[in-house]
């Protein structure tokens, strides 16, 4: 047993021109959330409670794309989704299409614990939220001025392109240039794409793993679009070996069943956590799909992996390691 460990993320794929002030804000938020998790772990809270607590905080802060500050659909409203999984018994809960629930991750947990089902969506999920008495807010609460601006930009840049991999045509390059004119992710210029999904993974002092992920989805998405975040095995997965939360291009993550594959490589191929994380990022994302993930193992290891230019992330371990970063290569 290697003691507790925690990792948080605030999305993969970052505008290289993101203002320094914004980078600092993101780091402060990640540090604060990490500290909340650390304190909870020190007071012996189970992994499941800790991931919920941390993701709630990320949802409540408007900076990242979840809860308050969630991205807007083409209709200018939020449709949030989230999931949570308890590795010790593989129980899980998920929600999609929420428009009034302040903390989607907590409703996902209630679906797991208080409903006969594991995934509820749209009006049925909202109805369940009301019955459970969770905190609700008008859709306006979730919408920030900044995201209104981003939606306008996204509509202008038009488009979630059909093929994510093809950058918008550049008239003057006539197809001869090998330079990418614009960094595109999820079919949008990367400056519009950020900020992104949040997630947390934890292994507690007793070696129990848990994972939680929450998102507003894509800016300018079609109403009704479901991404990888609520899908167990894609955006979120935990078992007795590890806990994993993913972020990035949802469709690539779904095809890769990215979160489950980290665990499956450990379980079926006997790889270590870091090896598994590196392998899925290197080999499981088809067609140049862009993604990042955070993971912890029951032995108290923590790993991050991404093939984007950065991943908003923070990690901490019982031995005193604590690190918050944005750019560069994945941590160990």
């Amino acid at each position, binding site marked *: 047993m290697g003691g507790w460990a925690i990792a948080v993320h605030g999305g993969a794929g970052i505008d290289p021109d993101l203002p320094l002030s914004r980078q600092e804000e993101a780091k402060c938020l990640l540090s604060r959330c990490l500290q909340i998790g650390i304190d909870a772990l020190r007071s012996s809270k189970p992994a499941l409670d800790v991931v919920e607590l941390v993701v709630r905080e990320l949802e409540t802060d408007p900076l990242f794309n979840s809860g308050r500050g969630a991205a807007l659909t083409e209709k200018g409203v939020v449709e949030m989704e989230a999931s949570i999984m308890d590795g010790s018994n*593989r129980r899980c809960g998920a929600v999609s299409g929420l428009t009034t629930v302040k903390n989607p991750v907590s409703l996902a947990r209630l679906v797991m*614990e208080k409903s006969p089902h*594991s995934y509820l969506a*749209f*009006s*049925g999920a909202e109805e369940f939220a009301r019955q459970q008495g969770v905190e609700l807010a008008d859709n306006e609460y979730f919408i920030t001025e900044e995201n209104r601006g981003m939606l306008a930009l996204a509509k202008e840049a038009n488009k979630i392109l*059909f093929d994510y991999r093809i950058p918008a045509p550049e008239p003057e390059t006539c197809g001869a240039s090998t330079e990418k004119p614009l960094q595109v992710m999820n079919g949008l210029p990367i400056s519009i794409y950020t900020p992104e999904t949040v997630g947390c993974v934890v292994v507690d002092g007793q070696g129990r793993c848990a994972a939680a992920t929450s998102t507003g989805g894509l800016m300018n*998405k079609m109403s009704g679009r479901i991404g990888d975040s609520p*899908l167990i095995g894609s955006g979120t997965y935990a078992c007795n070996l590890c806990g994993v939360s993913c972020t990035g291009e949802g469709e690539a993550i779904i095809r890769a069943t990215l979160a489950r594959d980290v665990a499956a490589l450990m379980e*079926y191929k006997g790889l270590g956590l870091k090896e598994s994380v590196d392998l899925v990022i290197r080999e499981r994302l088809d067609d140049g799909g862009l993604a990042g993930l955070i993971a912890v193992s029951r032995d108290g290891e923590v790993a991050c992996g991404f093939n984007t230019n950065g991943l908003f992330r923070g990690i901490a371990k019982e031995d005193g390691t604590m690190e918050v970063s944005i750019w560069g290569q994945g941590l160990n």
Partner: protein
Amino acid sequence: MGWAIALHGGAGDIPVTLPPDRRIPREECLRHCLKIGVDAIEAGRSALDVVELVVRELENNPNFNAGRGSVLTSEGTVEMEASIMDGNTMRCGAVSGLTTVVNPISFARLVMEKTPHIYLGFDGAEQFARGLGVETMDPSHFITRENIERLENAKAANRVQIDYTQPIQKDPVKEVPRGDGPSGDSQIGTVGCVAVDMDGNLATATSTGGLVNKMVGRIGDTPIIGAGTYANHLCAVSATGKGESIIRGTVARDVAALMEFKGLSLLEAAAHVVKDRVPEGTVGLVAVSAKGEVTMPFNTTGMFRACATEDGYSEVAIWPLN
């Protein structure tokens, strides 16, 4: 090598005493759908086309819980879901919360081919379907008299069990089958088809109305890639049974992952998943491999199923053989 096809109409607690008037139409439907699939493969159609074609036929048949004949939510409505995946390209499409789309599986394929997304649900999905001119019908088209009775029985018999407003102690029992309906047959049905074509391309498709008396908005394993449905270059899998168990067990992906990461054969991988990854009495699946192997394991009393391979083998069955 060679082509292979397998299809299912749901796994569950199907009593061996199922009366002939309930059994025979279903067996006939399975046989009919198998023939449609085999004919299409032999005519050189792609695996993706074949699984869509067969599942459409299963959806159109009111004897199974998908499309017309879907079971009802606690509000007496239908909310259908489906997904489809092409093993070669790993492209996939999924839909949930459909109330008027006649063939959810074909709509899932359109989501795969005509949108930048994989998965659309509920009102947004319905609106998109109408925009594409997909065939829709009044919700009453999907509701059968038998399913109205099933809902009434489920409500009467299991009110407490499914009353999620009650505090639930400890680990609540999830998605307990709602007891036998008026006909005494399974309440937990889903339909699916997997195929490998003459060129070795793999594909899978799964479609369902979900659970009798489910909460409005409930999503099961069927539309979730990796849970109810998965295909890659090695195999294609469609699962059926208790959604919660299939989601937790990432059943369809795990069959493929065991082949890919542990080097198991299709039969070994599928048997391992059904035996060790999910609780007894909850899950069945059909799967084919790129080599043209086929397997249809289940740990329930029975599974409505059928398969055929190029070498002439063919099977239509409900309960364990021999």
